[in-house]
């Protein structure tokens, strides 16, 4: 039985009118106009906006890179509630906690309300600028700079923004945008794509059909929390549990029990960095079939010892895999966080190969290229090595203008990378952030982008889902403040520059650009709705919240990169000597705050971490044995010291973690970024060094060793769970 039928119907009914109106006049579907600085209802409102009556608009969620389809309930021109778009196949009407909290990005009291220039970096004294002034001063800088020294630093960028930005940069002769953010690093996006390129010959995120699998082996893939496309994978997980004839068997290999591991049938506390070796051992036990050469010279006992998994457990796990009809093995974030991440990915993927699960039901797919190619979706993110190269260039004075959009590198990169220090060598830094975050504080000019609920855009679903899909993004409300879409800013710059730049971005407005882009998928036989003209398609595209194939469609990965020769998995490198730093540090993305970008939203700050039920601060999870050894208890403040730095955090005695590992959630420890985020907790990235995986250049973010020192202080961590009642559940 399909739920939320009404939402779907009312959405179709209501949005239809809106989109039609929008299509004819080319205006934003809004029910409020701006008078000065105030919001005021229209005297004669648009026809679909009845006072007190809700209108739903479909758009795209931008709270993470997955790009789920959402519907926003608006009343009198104000967005009131975000819900999943039930038609959009990726997330099927559902959202995660971060998706729900998007309203608070729109209505955040700490948003920048206009373009500003900062009088002296880090002064935090901002002077409002007229957009014309801001853009013309920026133009002067661009014209004075060597185009090759103009760098655009993006997070994992929205497809539309990447398209516009990369064309502009190319036209002026600047390098393409550099896409890097911590969230992508923590989920292993770059490693995953590079492994896919090698093994399947395509630079795409593989899609794991966990919905139809009967056994899932996940190596640190937190797919019901933050990994890749969590809502899509949660939908699949639900089907996995609810399938006829069983409820599936999920095994999670990771040093610290995540919420995904908690939902798993078996959590295997693996020693950090051993994922690839364990995969090899499993392969060895399984035999490998015609690819047995991959497992030549593998000593299972040795791996069992090195990985901290008992030999019997390994054998049992292999048996489970062997007995499964549709097993799938998923490499996730944790293996990518080590210097052998790439090797681990190859070893883990090889299991899918020898289990014959490439392109089979409950196995591994890749998404068909059609919409992604048509829309020229953004490529896979860059690796940390590219960022390091950038830092080197900055230090060498080879960066004249740095644009930062959608990422907060000063906060997100390891302190050891010295990004902030390198910024001092960049003459002109422009931030597009909606908030004064740590990177914006280092910039000279802030040109705040609209929040996503005020923006146009599109996003090709890259991971998860069972068919190709493109989500369309349209403004739900009119701009609250005097902010400007970065796409439009770049278009304006290109136009001003004229020549190749203007030619590269020929559109009069962002809307016309969007319409044009939608045209490139118009006419596909897979269309879920029929339209007669391009105009009609454009309206339907916005009305339905995007375009997707009307049937299941996924491509079989071609196993081009596998060889019947031994797979080398190097031992992982760690920062710090074991004697001095006896514990491994396991930073993990917070379910609600992600890599820290959610920290300025009070709903997300207040949402407890599922495992510790803690909120609003940073804690360090320690096995009861470890805590006992160090003589620390819950709420004790300890210093966590690595060769790269030290932070303080409150102890959470946590039964689901290896005794030789401590885990700290990423996301807190902001210096800036608004009242809800700043001066709260600490940032474990301060402990992480700059070890990379030599094969991909990905940051080995789990490669720091640490030691713990007591401070003697006790500070109460805000937790939902009572510590008194802890462990006394059996009473009732």
């Amino acid at each position, binding site marked *: 039985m*399909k*739920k*939320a*039928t*009404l939402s779907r119907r*009312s959405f179709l009914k209501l949005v239809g009118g809106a989109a039609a109106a929008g299509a004819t006049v080319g205006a934003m579907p809004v029910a409020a106009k701006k008078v000065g600085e105030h*919001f005021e209802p229209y005297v004669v409102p648009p026809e679909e906006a009845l006072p007190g009556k809700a209108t739903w608009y479909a758009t795209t969620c931008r709270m993470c890179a997955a790009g789920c389809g959402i519907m926003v309930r608006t009343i009198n021109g*104000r*967005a009131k*509630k975000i819900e999943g778009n039930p038609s959009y196949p990726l997330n099927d009407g*559902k959202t*995660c*906690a971060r998706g*729900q*909290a998007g*309203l*608070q990005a*729109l*209505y955040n*009291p700490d948003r920048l309300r206009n373009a500003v220039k900062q009088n002296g970096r880090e002064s935090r004294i901002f002077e409002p600028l007229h957009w014309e002034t801001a853009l013309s001063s920026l133009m002067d800088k661009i014209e004075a700079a060597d185009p090759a020294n103009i760098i655009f630093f993006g997070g994992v960028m929205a497809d539309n923004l990447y398209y516009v930005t990369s064309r502009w940069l190319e036209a002026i002769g600047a390098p393409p945008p550099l896409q890097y953010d911590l969230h992508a690093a923590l989920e292993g996006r770059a490693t995953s794509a590079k492994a896919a390129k090698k093994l399947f010959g395509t630079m795409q995120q593989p899609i794991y059909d966990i919905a139809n699998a009967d056994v899932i082996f996940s190596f640190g893939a937190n797919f*019901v*929390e933050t990994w890749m496309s969590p809502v899509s994978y*949660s*939908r699949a*997980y*639900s089907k996995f*549990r609810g399938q006829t004839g069983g*409820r*599936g*068997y999920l095994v999670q290999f990771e040093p610290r*029990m995540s*919420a995904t591991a*908690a*939902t798993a*049938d078996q959590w295997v*506390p693996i020693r950090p960095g051993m994922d690839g070796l364990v995969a090899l051992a499993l392969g060895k036990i399984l035999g490998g079939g015609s690819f047995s050469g991959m497992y030549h010279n593998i000593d299972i006992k040795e791996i069992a010892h090195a990985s901290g998994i008992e030999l019997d457990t390994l054998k049992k796990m292999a048996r489970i895999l062997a007995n499964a009809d549709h097993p799938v093995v998923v490499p996730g974030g944790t293996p990518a966080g080590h210097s052998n991440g790439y090797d681990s990915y190859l070893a883990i993927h090889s299991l899918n190969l020898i289990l014959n699960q490439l392109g089979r039901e409950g196995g591994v797919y890749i998404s068909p290229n059609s919409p992604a190619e048509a829309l020229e979706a953004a490529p896979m993110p860059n690796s940390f090595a590219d960022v390091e190269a950038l830092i080197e260039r900055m230090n060498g004075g080879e960066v004249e203008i740095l644009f930062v959009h959608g990422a907060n590198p000063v906060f997100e990169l390891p302190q050891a990378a010295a990004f902030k220090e390198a910024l001092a060598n960049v003459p002109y830094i422009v931030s597009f952030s909606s908030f004064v975050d740590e990177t914006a504080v280092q910039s000279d000019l802030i040109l705040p982008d609209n929040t996503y609920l005020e923006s146009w855009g599109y996003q090709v679903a890259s991971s998860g889902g069972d068919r190709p899909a493109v989500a369309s993004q349209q403004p739900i409300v009119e701009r*609250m403040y005097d902010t400007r879409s970065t796409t439009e800013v770049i278009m304006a710059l290109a136009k001003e520059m004229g020549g190749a730049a203007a030619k590269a971005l020929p559109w009069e407005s962002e809307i016309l650009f969007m319409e044009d882009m939608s045209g490139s998928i118009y006419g596909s036989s897979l269309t879920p709705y029929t339209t007669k003209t391009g105009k009609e398609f454009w309206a339907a595209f916005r009305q339905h919240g995007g375009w997707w194939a009307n049937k299941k469609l996924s491509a079989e990965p071609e196993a081009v990169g596998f060889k019947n020769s031994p797979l080398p998995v190097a031992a992982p490198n760690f920062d710090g000597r074991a004697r001095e730093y006896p514990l491994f540090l396991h930073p993990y993305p917070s*379910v*609600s705050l992600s890599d820290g970008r959610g920290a300025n939203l*009070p*709903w*997300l700050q*207040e*949402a407890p971490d*599922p495992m510790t*039920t803690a*909120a*609003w601060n940073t804690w360090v999870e320690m*096995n*009861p044995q470890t805590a006992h050894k160090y003589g620390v208890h819950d709420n004790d403040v300890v210093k966590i010291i690595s060769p790269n730095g030290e932070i303080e955090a409150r102890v959470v005695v946590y*039964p*689901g973690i*290896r005794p030789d590992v401590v885990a700290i959630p990423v996301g807190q420890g902001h210096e800036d970024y608004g009242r809800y985020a700043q001066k709260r907790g600490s940032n474990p990235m301060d402990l992480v060094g700059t070890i990379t995986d030599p094969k991909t250049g990905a940051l080995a973010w789990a490669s720091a060793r640490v030691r713990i020192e007591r401070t003697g202080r006790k500070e109460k961590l*805000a*937790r*939902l*769970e*009572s510590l008194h009642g802890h462990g006394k*559940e059996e009473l*009732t």
Partner: protein
Amino acid sequence: MATAKKNSLNTPENEGGGHGGETTAETRWGLSIDLDKCTGCQACVVACHAENNVPVVGEEETAYGRSAHWLRIERYWEGEYPNVKAKFMPVMCQQCTDAPCEAVCPVYATYHSDEGLNGQIYNRCIGTRFCGSACPYKTRMYNWFDPIYPEPLAEQLNPDVTVRSRGIMEKCTFCVQRIRRTQEDAKAEGRDVQDGEIAPACVQSCPTDAFTFGNLNDSESAVSQEARSSRAFRLLDNLGTGPAVIYLKGGETRV
């Protein structure tokens, strides 16, 4: 609509001696939660905040047990490292048939609706907190202070739901405003409300479909079918409160 089934202590689904949550009325809203599917992702928690204008209280207050979550996900540890397991259990107002909170309110600020909802009338509440002391599930939340919405955060508020001032008890209402909205829309279209058509915010958001909402007195409804499942149990059933929230305990796969 199936015939309303009289609550009986002897039916198999009422094992444990408490009420089954069903009543003799035509409609008895109920919610089932499949613990096998709950991943603890907090989507329901944030959705509930957004839908019901649930205040955010901040770090200090949260640390002092004053968070206002109408819906919280309790996490229970089982066993010890390395054979440790964690289980999630979303807990909200159980909308009891015989609610301990209802009898003790001196001003009828909490009452029982004819659809079985345990209603909370904010304007009537004088804040004795008796209901909070009486509730065995501890799902009643008090407004310790006036909520703060720095401009323009108040724009996020749902106009269908009152913003509660200090001194008022509040709790999960099964999103009564969404129930009413759906009922009114159905009425305007001259039809009955379909099973599964009503979705409280938590149910709507849940990425794993762990929640099922519907009429417990309709034996055909998905929720009453789940209530009859062998996995079904009710929280603190032995207290005889007759919760309308039915939990389906997590399964185990044998390998």
